[in-house]
């Protein structure tokens, strides 16, 4: 995988799609994201991303709100 293309999730603008590459975080956080479907390899769409505060992600057919700190630790690639 080419790491140069990775960017934090929070940098996606509204409507952009990307593939989740990895999550920087402990076991608990990974589990929690994973049960919501946020696993490496999954395709996500940015639904709402303002200049501050949390973001809303589209994943499969659901919408998930993530704190901005969290969104900074999730890395994705645009293809």
């Amino acid at each position, binding site marked *: 995988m080419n790491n140069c293309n990775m960017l934090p999730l929070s940098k996606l603008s509204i409507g952009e799609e990307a593939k989740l590459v990895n999550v920087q975080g402990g*076991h*608990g*956080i*990974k*589990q*929690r*994201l*994973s*049960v*919501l*479907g946020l*696993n*490496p*390899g*999954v395709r996500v769409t940015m*639904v*709402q991303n*303002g*200049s*501050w*505060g*949390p973001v*809303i992600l*589209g994943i*499969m*057919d*659901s*919408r*998930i*709100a*993530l*704190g*901005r*700190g*969290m969104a900074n630790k999730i890395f994705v690639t645009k293809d």
Partner: protein
Amino acid sequence: MEKTITIALAGNPNSGKTTVFNNITGAHQHVGNWAGVTVEKKEGKCKYNETDINVVDLPGTYSLTAYSPEELIARDFVVEEKPDVVIDIVDASNLERNLYLTTQLMELDANIVIALNMMDVAESRGFVIDAQKMSEMLSVPIVPMIASKNKGTQELLRAAVESATNGSSHNSKRIHYGREVEDELGNIQKAIDKLDSDELKRKYSSRLISLKLLENDQEFIDAIDILDDKQSLMSTVSESIEHLKEIFGCDVESVIVDRRYGFVSGVGTEVIKRTGEERHTRSDQIDRVLTNTFTGVPIFLFLMWLAFQLTFKVGAYPTDWIDHAVSGLSHLIEALMPETWYRSLILDGIVGGVGGVIVLLPNIFLLFFVISVLEDSGYMARAAFIMDGLMHKLGLHGKSFIPMLMGFGCNVPAIMATRTLESRTDRILTILIIPLMSCSARLPVYALLTAAFFPKYAGTVIFSLYLLGIVLAILMGRLFRKTLFRTPMVPLIIELPPYRIPTIKGTLIHMWERGSQFLKKVWTIVLAGAIIIWFLGTFPSGVDYASEASYAGKLGHIIEPVVAPLGADWRGGVALLFGFVAKEIVVATMGVLYGTGENQEMLVEKLQTAMTPLSAFAFMVATLIYMPCLATVAAIKKETNSWRWTLFAVGYGLALAWILSTLVYQVGSLFGLA
């Protein structure tokens, strides 16, 4: 032939689980707590043909890991109580996500029946689901239904009873984790078979144990850890984990979770037909306005204002009626009973004390009504989203905002509203600072004292007290976060359910459930507190109620040295003491102590000679902070489930109130304001 079976309801949050539960059990419900934790346990009964059915509502979860108490409860119940049937409620409009839990239930060897709920929503989003095919793929009976319209309930019960009857024949589909993982599972299973412990093997299949050990599941690791012959098993497990890590280049847990999703999405692709790609669903369109950076906050504030108005303005009418009814009852008792100590007990103690809580009922029920509407419509999750950025800066969670705001009306429902917070530390932290939100019962005290001492600046002075409460809440929140709750904050990760119009039945049931449960829990504490205060005011016998000669008066003199630094005398001490029952009583008590009864004008005159503007302000600061009222203390005890935190809430309030009001009085005196 009569028989009894037990059904457990499992499902994701927002899958309509509660609605299904309500449909099945109707009014035959019982709400309690799961042993040892403050997670709600709901049970109910119903009858289908000749079968009596006990229904247990498991906590709503996305998975069955050892990550949260809710998930552990659900898992333990399925494994240990072995319900005859587990009904897995699956949101058809969100099939793939919901099926993840199903795969885990399948792995627990539960006897599953799937309730495929929200078929109408799925349809409106353009999905057609082939339930027949899905049932074949999973080898599990499936009942399509629309719980919000009570469609499919009878069919579901029939399937559950049937499944319970041929319970032994169930063998749901097993997920294949790929050759490499399956090989290692086989190795671990062999090591498990060599173990001596029957206890563990009786509860779980050796495949499940192997899988959980590979997944690094803490509960299973702990269970193995206490065994004497764990050595060879543990080394097999770590070898397997290392081996798989080499092959896949990442954690085994992720591989396993990945495979489950693979299985789930395989099922999804097979059974879902999309009739139209609806990328911008209606919910997204609503969200574009409601969670927008610019419009989100004003709309949120407006909705909160509306909720507040509904709870406290509309609630003021029934509150008034109850108030009249309570005082009518008092007059009746006064007229009918001879003047004895027990009349006084009933009047001043029971009617006065319990009445003080009963008048809060309309507010409490209305608040729960509002909260239910906000939750059921899907807006509550958005509210947390909107406030998260700001609240984070204060060391709090986005979901803490609504309870804190509600605190301005009444602390009791506010504390109960903290239930929407998932993490226990966030919940306790929020509960601890809610009493600093100046509730409406404190207003009469401010009104009286500002009328006496700051007639020209009444508004400004009262506003400054509210502001002081907010500033203190922020400071204390940060302080507690830095000292008591140093665990990192749980970051905001929540699902935003699609917007839904709440059903009247569901909303009313939610409201009733929470309100009546509250009453059941607090009445004993409130009654006991009211009687103690009454006793102090009445005895030794023969004294006037709450006069200087009563125990309360004597107590006032004893605590006078304590309240003196903040510029109060023994009367101030007694008034604060009695204010513990309900803060508005402070005013009534002052009326008694200064011998003016209910005549406020006379009381104002008397106060002007007994206090100074500075001591009055210090007294108001003390009233704001000093101690949550009796009903609030009862609510804190109930919600934290801990006397330690309850006492802490009371203790820190007293300390903070004393320090601040003394500071106000002493510094003011230095500047010659006394």
